[in-house]
Each structure stands twice: as structure tokens, then as C-alpha cells.
């Protein structure tokens, strides 16, 4: 009897060790079960951040076109791995592929679809107006060199505001995410100390503070702890009506995150666009008086030469449609559509996609 129980216990505990895969369940499998003949099925995998808008776009496009898209929101890193191994038709990532990653699979086009931004939220019950911060101050808070809310540097940015003599509790996201990438990219851009001590990444070594999982975890920790500060995606902050800080942008203006100020972050790139023809570029701390400084592109990763012309044409058609028609849908879901200058460049890039053994352009027809 005991032996039997014991054996069962052993087997189960081994099973338990490997159990619970965690948060990366494959996302929505879109479309109806029985597709009409002639329907092209595209598979994609990658970033979780644009998942809501991608599902909306793919479903809407599928209603009037014979294209079905299975997009699995497995995370940007997994998306890059899958497109590198060629197991999906397209990948998606919040952060552009690094040179080393691109060297392993040359000929991946980076196609920006929308812009996202990261809002800085805080828990200061006495505060009536939005908190104002600038990049170096935010970096100092997350480095642990500014520890009190009534520090002179914060007070200097918020004249006439009574700030409490309370400890600051920085909250960060520990699940590797594009949100963390953009946030640390911004801090690296504005603070040499941050760049040297911590750097930019989807997972970094945080000098101080508390780690929480996902937007909901960060929000929970910030809401529960007076004096806490955290960062979440704009869409999440808007939907949950969190207090968000106005950040000083490169032009010196204090800007609150919004769909408009996020689009504005890519609106005045000019010279930078010419320097980065592949669009693998950071738009944090961008020029422009209306630009919100913690913004970034999210990308589709598309092979510049595809085997199957049917798939290539369907994919390019879909992307062109999202650029032309998808803006309003994006705005409704709190994503920022691309400004015209970037859109033109993306359309040009798509003309370079070829397919089949003859390498014919996928755009034709």
C-alpha cells in the first residue's frame, strides 16, 4: 500500500517539476475551421504587445479577402527564433533584430506596423496634477540615487507641488518584454550612468526596486504601495485609468503619453530615417515638440525572398492594407499609427520583396 502510494508520489512529483509552462500560451488561432478553397493560410509568431491590434486587423482583412492568419503571440524572442529557423511565414518583434541575429538569417525585412509607448505610472495619493519628470531624473530613481519623493531634482521639475517626504519604490517588469526594452532604451539614451551601469535589454539587472510580472503585476504593485513608481504599456494605462507622468522630451516640453504624442515621436525623424534605411531604429527621445519620448516601433519580420508566391502576395497585400486602412482600428485600441513619412518608406521597402525561384516581385498584380 505505502509502496504504491510512494510510487505514485514519485511519478507525480517528477511530472510536477516540468509542469506549468508559464505565460507563453500560443495565442489566438484565428479564423473559421473550414476555410474556403483557395484561401491562403499564413502563420506568424512573435510579440505579445501588438497582439490585440494584429488579431483585429487579421480578422477584419480575412472577412473580405481569402487570407487566413494564424498568429501566435509567443513573445518577440521566440518570434525571432522562429523566423530564423523558417518555421513561420512571418515573425513579429518589438525590438529590432540585432546585427548578430540578422547575420544568422540575412534578408529579413523589418516592417514597422504601429508605434507603442510606455507610460510611467505612480502612486502619490496627495497629488492633484500629473507628475512631471525628465529622463535623467527617472534614470536616477531607477538607479536608486534618488530615494525620496521630495528630492530637490523632482521638486525642481514640479514647482508649486507639495511632494511627500516618502520613500520611492521603483517597480519594474521582470518578464522579458518589449516594454522593458523601450523603457531601458530610453533611460540609456538620456542617462550616461544608466547606459554604463545597466544598459538596454528585454531583461536587465535592475539596481533597485521590485519586480512584477506583466502589466497587471506592475499595476498591482504600484496601486498597493504608496510611493511606488512603475511603467506599463500606454494601452494598459489608458484602459485602467492609471495616473501617468508627463515626461520632458528632447524639445524641452512636458508631454503626457497618448496615441497622438506617440505618433508624433516618429513624425519628425527626417535625417534619422535616411541614416537607417532598414528602419531598424530607436525613436526614443525623438525630436519634435509634441513627441512622447518613450515610444518605439513594433515590427513584422518578413523574409525578403519567399518560396511560395501565393503566400508572399497574400502577406504583402495584407501589410499594405493595414498601412492604408488600419489606422482607425489601431487608434481605437490605443496603438499609434505610423506617420506618413514612415509609411511611405515602408511601402517602398515592400516593393523589394520577391518570391519563387524566379525571384519575381511579390507586389505585382
Amino acid at each position, binding site marked *: 500500500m*505505502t509502496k504504491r502510494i*510512494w510510487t505514485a508520489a514519485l511519478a507525480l*512529483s517528477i511530472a510536477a517539476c516540468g509542469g506549468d509552462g508559464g505565460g507563453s500560451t500560443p495565442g489566438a488561432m484565428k479564423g473559421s475551421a473550414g476555410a474556403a478553397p483557395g484561401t491562403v493560410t499564413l502563420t506568424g509568431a512573435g510579440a505579445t504587445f501588438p497582439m490585440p491590434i494584429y488579431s483585429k486587423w487579421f480578422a477584419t482583412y480575412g472577412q473580405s479577402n481569402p487570407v487566413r492568419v494564424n498568429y501566435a503571440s509567443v513573445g518577440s524572442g521566440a518570434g525571432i527564433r522562429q523566423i530564423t529557423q523558417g518555421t513561420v511565414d512571418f515573425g513579429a518583434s518589438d525590438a529590432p533584430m540585432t546585427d548578430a541575429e540578422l547575420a544568422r538569417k540575412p534578408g529579413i525585412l523589418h516592417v514597422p506596423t504601429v508605434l507603442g509607448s510606455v507610460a510611467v505610472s505612480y502612486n502619490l495619493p496627495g497629488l492633484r496634477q500629473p507628475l512631471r519628470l525628465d529622463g535623467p531624473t527617472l534614470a536616477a530613481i531607477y538607479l536608486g540615487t534618488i530615494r525620496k519623493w521630495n528630492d530637490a531634482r523632482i521638486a525642481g521639475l514640479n514647482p508649486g507641488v507639495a511632494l511627500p517626504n516618502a520613500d520611492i519604490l521603483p517597480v519594474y517588469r521582470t518578464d522579458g518584454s518589449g516594454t522593458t526594452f523601450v523603457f531601458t532604451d530610453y533611460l540609456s539614451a538620456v542617462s550616461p550612468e544608466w547606459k554604463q551601469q545597466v544598459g538596454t535589454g528585454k531583461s536587465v539587472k535592475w539596481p533597485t526596486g521590485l519586480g512584477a510580472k506583466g502589466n497587471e503585476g506592475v499595476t498591482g504593485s504600484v496601486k498597493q504601495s504608496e510611493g511606488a513608481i512603475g511603467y506599463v504599456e500606454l494601452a494598459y494605462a489608458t484602459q485602467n485609468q492609471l495616473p501617468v507622468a508627463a515626461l520632458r522630451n528632447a524639445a524641452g516640453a512636458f508631454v503626457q503619453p497618448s496615441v497622438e504624442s506617440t505618433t508624433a515621436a516618429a513624425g519628425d525623424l527626417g535625417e534619422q530615417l535616411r541614416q537607417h534605411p532598414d528602419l531598424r531604429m530607436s525613436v526614443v527621445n525623438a525630436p519634435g515638440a509634441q513627441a512622447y519620448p518613450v515610444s518605439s516601433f513594433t515590427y513584422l519580420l518578413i523574409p525578403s525572398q519567399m518560396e511560395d508566391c501565393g503566400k508572399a502576395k497574400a502577406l504583402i497585400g495584407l501589410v499594405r492594407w493595414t498601412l492604408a486602412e488600419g489606422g482607425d482600428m489601431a487608434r481605437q485600441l490605443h496603438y499609434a499609427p505610423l506617420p506618413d513619412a514612415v509609411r511611405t518608406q515602408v511601402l517602398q521597402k515592400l516593393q523589394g520583396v520577391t518570391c519563387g525561384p524566379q525571384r519575381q516581385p511579390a507586389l505585382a498584380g
Partner: protein
Amino acid sequence: MQPTPEQAGVLAGGGPRSWVRRVFPSVRHGNLADRAYAITLGAFGAAIPILFFFILLRVGTAAWPALQRFGGGFIVGSDWNPVAGNYGALPFIFGTLASSLLALLIAVPLAVGLAIFLTELSPRWIAAPVAFGTELLAAIPSVVYGLWGIFVLVPWLRANVQQPLASAFGDSFPLFAGPAYGTSIMAGGAILAIMIVPFISAVSREVLAAVPRDQREAALALGATRWEMTWQVVLPYAVPGIIGATILGLGRALGETMAITMVIGNRPDIPTSLFAPGYTMASVLANEFSEASDELHLAALMEIGLILFGITILVNSVARLLVWRVARRAGK
């Protein structure tokens, strides 16, 4: 004496199939149906070790760059910096063991006490619904535990346990040192305890119920009180099973991911206070794996998986030894 075919095979230096025959003797015997039966079941039996081997092989291969680069320093290193490419697993190993042991400390007395109450003391009309309710806890998905943990358990612990303890004993007793933010090793241990109680209590209850009736009656006939009967007769009889149940709970606690990730605070430090945040091996895998794209980072995560694998095997082996020794001493 005629050598049997097996012996003949051994004597002849072993034919290509002789080991198969020795491992699966029934392959040789009987009619076609019996052989098919033996081969099919043999294949089922082999499936699990083969699967085990391939998992080990795959994880080991993926972890190889990290093994090569850091060697044994990986286990004792405590710096985890994906940007700089430095990886050390000690904070995660510590966090996993600390939170699991804390969970056992809370859960074992609770679960065994519950099992004793249900089998020895409570009337049937109470025992059935309570047992059902406990087992229902096991059916709640761990992400629900995690969300409940972060929005209910953590604020409650902070206000009613951590902050009072930290302000009363924090200065003199490092285990209770502040500041108490709520998300902590303690919150992790508490949520794990709640999650493993159903497993431990369900198995313990079965074990206690399986103690033969004559053992109890003999004790009572000798004039033992109920307490003496439970404590001196029933429990010693059931101890190996209860240890097995505890290990089942420990295995679950070591591998638990979602719920603990949401409440433990996810800081790769080795805290000295119960109220400080920590990090577990399963949590760092869940957090960083999906977004990790550089090779060394992936390899480091894989090596953490390998270590978790190893710790689980170790824990199970030790437990098995323990059960075996206890059972032998009890003369069963």
C-alpha cells in the same frame, strides 16, 4: 545438464538479441499473442525512460554554451546580468529552495492535521464536504492563485503580518527585517503552501484510512485513548506514506511557476529577511525564456532548467531513501 537458451546465449558470447531476451524473457515464451503483448507493453515501459533521456539530451545540448563558459561558477555565482552576459544561478536556487521549504513548514502540519481530523475525528457529514473542498483547491489554475495572491493575499500579509512583525522584531531579528513591501519570499511560501495542502492532505488521508482496522481496535482494547491510538499506532503505521505525500507536495512546490512568479518579487538577490523579494528557477524561466534571443542567455536559462531537473531528481531520491529506511525500521 542442458544449458537453457539464455545461458547458451551468454556462453556463446551473446547473440545480437540475447540481451533483449534476458531483459524481456516473455518475448521468447508463449504464442504470438503473448509475444505481441510483451513487446507492446515493453515499448510502453521503454517510452518514459527514452523520453527522459531525450529531454535531458536536448536541454543539455542547449545549455552547453553556458556550461562551457561558466562551468561550476554558474551554480555559485550570484550575478544575473543579461545585458553584460554574466550569469549566476545561486539566487534562483536559493529562492526555489527557501520558498519550497517555507511552504512545507506551513503546509505539512496543516495538511496532516486536516487528514487526521477527517479520518479519525470528524463525523462523516463533515468529512465528505471538507475533503471535497480541499480537493477542489487542487483544481484551481495556478494563474488564478497568482492573481488572487497579488490582489488579496499580498496586501493582507503586508498589513497584518509583515508590517507588525517588521516593526516589532525587525531590528533585532534579521529574518523579520523590513521594509515590508508585501511581495516577498514569505508571500511565495504562503501561496505555495495553500497550493500543496490539497495534495498532501488527500494522499495522507488515503494512507491513514488504509491503516488496518484491527490495529486500531487492538490499541483501543489495550486501553489506549483515542489520542494515544492515533499518535502511537495509526501515525507510525502511516509515516512512510505521509513522507511520500510530503514529497509529492515538495515536487509541486519546486516546479510551480505562475503563482509564485506573481508574488515573490522577482529580484535575483539572496535575501536574509522573509519579507524581502526573491526569485525562483521556474520563475526566471517563465519570465525570460520567451523574450531571450541571444544564445548565451538562452543557454543560461537552459542550464537553470537542467539544475531544476537535477534538484528534483535529488529530492526524490533522498525521499525515496527516507521512505525505504522508515519502512524497513517499521519492519514492513
